[in-house]
């Protein structure tokens, strides 16, 4: 791996997880406020994540196995915020029903 490729790959992975955080944050805020514009921003954040992950898969010298892990992670990041939110709503609703 060339020095430039090393640095670029590493930074791309950092950006990917950072974008996942931004997506989760904006998704949560959008659900809270029921805001269409925040949903769009959350989508944009995930778009950055997806583009970044595609860049890592297509243009970096990582081994194929790691590229598969990155691609699978990018898909998992898409589902985690809605799944977590749904679980939170369900548990709080159940709590409301019990108290």
């Amino acid at each position: 791996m060339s020095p430039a490729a090393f640095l670029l790959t590493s930074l791309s992975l950092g950006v990917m997880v950072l974008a996942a955080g931004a997506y989760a944050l904006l998704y949560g805020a959008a659900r809270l406020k029921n805001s269409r514009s925040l949903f769009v921003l959350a989508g944009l954040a995930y778009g950055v994540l997806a583009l970044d992950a595609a860049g890592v898969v297509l243009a970096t010298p990582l081994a194929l196995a790691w590229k598969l892990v990155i691609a699978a992670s990018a898909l998992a990041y898409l589902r985690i915020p809605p799944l977590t939110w749904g679980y939170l709503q369900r548990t709080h609703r159940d709590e409301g029903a019990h108290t």
Partner: protein
Amino acid sequence: MSRSKNLAVKYLIAAVLFFGVMTLSGLLAATYYINPEFLFGLLHFSIAKILHIDTMIIWLLMGFMGAVYWFLPDEFGREPVGIWAAEILFWVFVAAVLAVAAIFVFVQWGPGTETTLWLFQQGRKYVEAPRWAAIGVALVMLVFAWNVVGTAMQARRITGVMAVMSVNMVPLVLLYLIAFPNISNMAVDLYWWWWLVHLWVEATWEILIGCIMALAMMKLLGTSRQIVEGWLYIEVALVLGTGILGLGHHYFWIGTPDYWLGIGGFFSALEPLPLLGMVVHAIYDAGVHRMKTTNRPAFCWALAEAFGNFLGAGVFGFMITLPQLNLFAHGTQWTVSHGHFAFWGAYACGILSVCYIALQEQRRLATVDSSSWVWAFILLNGGLIGMAGSLLVAGMAQAFFERAIGGSTLEAFIAGQENPWFVISMYSRFGFGLVFAAGYLALAWNLLTLGRREATISIRPVVPAE
């Protein structure tokens, strides 16, 4: 207040004081990087570093213990079993830590003999404390475990949180026993040593802070036990699923078989996933409660824990965890930046949150709010982010110029250390270290004075729905 809560306050005070020692020794260690002749012949850099790292372990450990002793009587409706032993051992613990610190500063090291291992230091990173002190820590851990498990058994009832905590006491005590062996083969020694360092930090401590934050959320927000326990079980499953074999990322390049590269890389790559769920949960709690709470600092520190953990462990960790990249970044300031941010987010913020929860009840304050906690919060977090950012740039310069371009030769090492990116980052780290230290002073002042001048009001604790 109960004896257990009195002991908790002592532990939390000691934790905050050792947090100060950690901050001061961190500033000392940072000074060597910008002035290598600093304290030449008096105090070696390695000693300042040992003090910094070891006090970090100690203050977090004391913070955990303080938090657990604080919540135990509420969980079981009684004093913990063997509280008398814990009260005695608190003073033994503090005296031992001070004695070890004095040995590190004034004796520093000895010849490579058994006497040195027993009396001065063991020379193993994070667990440098001499054997007599390590035995003391093991004893303290054993009594701590007895307090938790024994109380649960005698109370004849156990909650989900306390069940998880009780089971967690077993590895917490057993793993510490790895602090003792004297293995001459360095690869074998490191192999086992990482069990202690990684599995304490990324397994047992994660579960312990998970339990503590579950109890804190019930107090702070009145969240129901059903919800926090549900989340705790999920967290335990994810921590054990990703964290245990994530151990493999420490086995890179230390003489272990190649398969650890795959195992370590894969499970470490999964570690950001649960942290993302934590971010969503933090948003949910902040939104549902509209940031309204009677204890704003405790709530904000709890939120800072979720975000700090995600950024420090998730983002900063993921950049260097795949073996092909770790080959260059391993052991550089890049790792240090990840370590600083991850420890801060995962543990320190949580303990500070509990400090404010305990303070509210101890001083019988209806609400906890002031401007000085905000200053402490901004300066500590700002200083930490600045330090981690500076170390990140320094580490990138090291990995790029020294490792990737220079091929890790001695010449390349010197070139890396003299590179302007590295040098400027070291100055910047020191500057942000001063900001962090100012934040510590604001925090100490706030904890000391908060509510002292105000009329105390009898408060009714928030009772979580069953």
